C-alpha cells in the first residue's frame, strides 16, 4: 500500500546524514562533556560544533544558544525563567490565544504564582494585531511571548512589529520558533527577539534536542538546577548524540532551506486548491501568511479523528489539531479563538509536508480524501442538508471567516 506522511509538524524522519553525525556519540565517543580527558573533550567539541550550527541557522552568537531537551522545555524555560528573573520589576505577562500548550500551561503556572497574564485575541486568520499588543502593555509588563507560527493553523505572526513594540517599552520578547526554525528563514537580529525556542525534530533532527536562544546579557532563572552545563543555565549531563544531530540538522537546513521551502509550497498549494473543491470545507489560518509546508482545514459535519483513521487505512498520515489536543479529543482552543464554532472545530484536519512528499503523494490524497469525507458524512447525523453550509457560510466561502 502507498504510504504518505503528511504530518511533518508533528515530527520529521531523521535525515540519514544527521544519524551518521550522531552515531559516534552513541558508540566510541560516549564521554561526559565535563570530563577533562580526551573522551570528554571530544563530546564537548561536538556540543560546541552543534551550538555553532544552530546559531548560524538563526544568525546568533553561539554563546547565546542554550540546549534543552525539547521545544516545550525551551518554552517553559523562557516564560518561567524570564518572569522569575523580572518579578521585582513587574508581574504582568502577555501571550496570545494561539500559543502551544507549553506556553499556555506555563502562563497558567505563572498565574497560580502571583503573575497576571493577558491572553491576546487573534483575528479570523489567527493573526495577533501589534496594536492590541501595544494596548495591553501596563507598567507591570515584563514579558511578551508570541508564537512565530502556529503549528495548528500555519499562520505566521508579525513578530518583527511586536518585537519592536516590546523593545520600545523595555519589555523582554520571546518568540516560539518551534514551527518555523529550519522551515522558513529565521534571523534573531532581523526579527529583534530576545528569546527564541526551537526543536530539532522539526527540521529532520532527532527528538530529545531543543534550544533556547537567549540574547547576550539577558538574565534568566534556570528551569533545571544542578551542575554547570550550558554555562550554568541548564543542568543535566547533555544528550550528546541528540545535540550533535541537532547541529547537523541545522547545517543542512541552512543550506537546503530555499529548496525545501519551494518544494513544500508547491505541494501545499496543490493540496489547498484540491481540497477546497470539496463542498463545505474551509481553510484555517491565513491564506498567504502561512508556513510553506502547512495546509489546514475544517471539514463540516464530521470529526477529525474519523478522517485520520480512514486516511491511515489508506496509508496516509495527517493530524487533527496539535498532536497534544488531538489525543485529548477536545476542541482546539486555537480554532475556537479564531471564532470557529465548537462543532466545526471538531472537523479539523492538518496536512503538513516535507522533503519526502511528492506530487504523486498529493494526487493520491486528493483522489482518496473526497470519498472518505462523503462516506463519513453519509454516517453523520449532523450532515442532513449539508449542501447549505453552516449558518451564514454557504458554498463558495472557502476560507473560514468567523
Amino acid at each position: 500500500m502507498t504510504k504518505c506522511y503528511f504530518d511533518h509538524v508533528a515530527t520529521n524522519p531523521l535525515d540519514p546524514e544527521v544519524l551518521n553525525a550522531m552515531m559516534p556519540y552513541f558508540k566510541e565517543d560516549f564521554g561526559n562533556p565535563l570530563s577533562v580527558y580526551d573522551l570528554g573533550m571530544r563530546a564537548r567539541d561536538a556540543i560546541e560544533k552543534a551550538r555553532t550550527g544552530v546559531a548560524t541557522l538563526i544568525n546568533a552568537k553561539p554563546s547565546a544558544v542554550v540546549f534543552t531537551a525539547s521545544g516545550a522545555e525551551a518554552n517553559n524555560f523562557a516564560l518561567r525563567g524570564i518572569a522569575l528573573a523580572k518579578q521585582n520589576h513587574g508581574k504582568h505577562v502577555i501571550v496570545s490565544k494561539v500559543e502551544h500548550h507549553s506556553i499556555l500551561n506555563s502562563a497558567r503556572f505563572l498565574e497560580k504564582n502571583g503573575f497576571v497574564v493577558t491572553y491576546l485575541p487573534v483575528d479570523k486568520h489567527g493573526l495577533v494585531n501589534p496594536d492590541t499588543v501595544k494596548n495591553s502593555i501596563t507598567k507591570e509588563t515584563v514579558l511578551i511571548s508570541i508564537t512565530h507560527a502556529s503549528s495548528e493553523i500555519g499562520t505566521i505572526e508579525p513578530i518583527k512589529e511586536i518585537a519592536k513594540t516590546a523593545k520600545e517599552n523595555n519589555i523582554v520578547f520571546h518568540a516560539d520558533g518551534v514551527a518555523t526554525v529550519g522551515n522558513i528563514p529565521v534571523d534573531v537580529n532581523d526579527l529583534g527577539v530576545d528569546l527564541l525556542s526551537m526543536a530539532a525534530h522539526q527540521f529532520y533532527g532527532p527528538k530529545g534536542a531543543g534550544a533556547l536562544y537567549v540574547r547576550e546579557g539577558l538574565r534568566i532563572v534556570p528551569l533545571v538546577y544542578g551542575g554547570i552545563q550550558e554555562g550554568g543555565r541548564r543542568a543535566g549531563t547533555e544528550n550528546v548524540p541528540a545535540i550533535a544531530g541537532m547541529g547537523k540538522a541545522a547545517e543542512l537546513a541552512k543550506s537546503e532551506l530555499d529548496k525545501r521551502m519551494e518544494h513544500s509550497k508547491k505541494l501545499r498549494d496543490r493540496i489547498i486548491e484540491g481540497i477546497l473543491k470539496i463542498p463545505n470545507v474551509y481553510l484555517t489560518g491565513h491564506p498567504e501568511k502561512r508556513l510553506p509546508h502547512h495546509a489546514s482545514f475544517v471539514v463540516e459535519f464530521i470529526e477529525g479523528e474519523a478522517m485520520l483513521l480512514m486516511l491511515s487505512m489508506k496509508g496516509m498520515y495527517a493530524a487533527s489539531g496539535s498532536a497534544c489536543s488531538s489525543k485529548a479529543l477536545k476542541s482546539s482552543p486555537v480554532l475556537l479563538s479564531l471564532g470557529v464554532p465548537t462543532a466545526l472545530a471538531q472537523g479539523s484536519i492538518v496536512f503538513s509536508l516535507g522533503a519526502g512528499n511528492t506530487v504523486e503523494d498529493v494526487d493520491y490524497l486528493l483522489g482518496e480524501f473526497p470519498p472518505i469525507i462523503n462516506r463519513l458524512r453519509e454516517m453523520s447525523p449532523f450532515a442532513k442538508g449539508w449542501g447549505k453550509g453552516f449558518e451564514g457560510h454557504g458554498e463558495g466561502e472557502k476560507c473560514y471567516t468567523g
Partner: protein
Amino acid sequence: MKFVHGVKADITADIVYMMCPMHLLKLDEMVRSLENGQVLEILTDYDGALEDIPQWCVRTGNEFVGMDEDEDYYKFYVRKAGNVQ
C-alpha cells in the same frame, strides 16, 4: 567582609542566576583575560560567593578589592595581581 562603593571596573561578568560553581569558573576565566592591575566586577546572586570569592583571591594571590550589593544580587571586585594566574 570588606564593603566598597563606586569601584570602577575594567570588565564586568554578569552571572546572576547561573548555577554554582559558575562564579568560580567565570572568575578564573575572566581574571586570566585581564592585564595586571585591572579590576573585574562579577555580579552574582549566589550566597556561597560571599565566602568563595575572597578565599579564591587568597588562594590565587589576586587582590579582593571588596563587595557591594544591588537590589537582588552581589557585586564583587577583584584586581588582578602581577606574577599570578
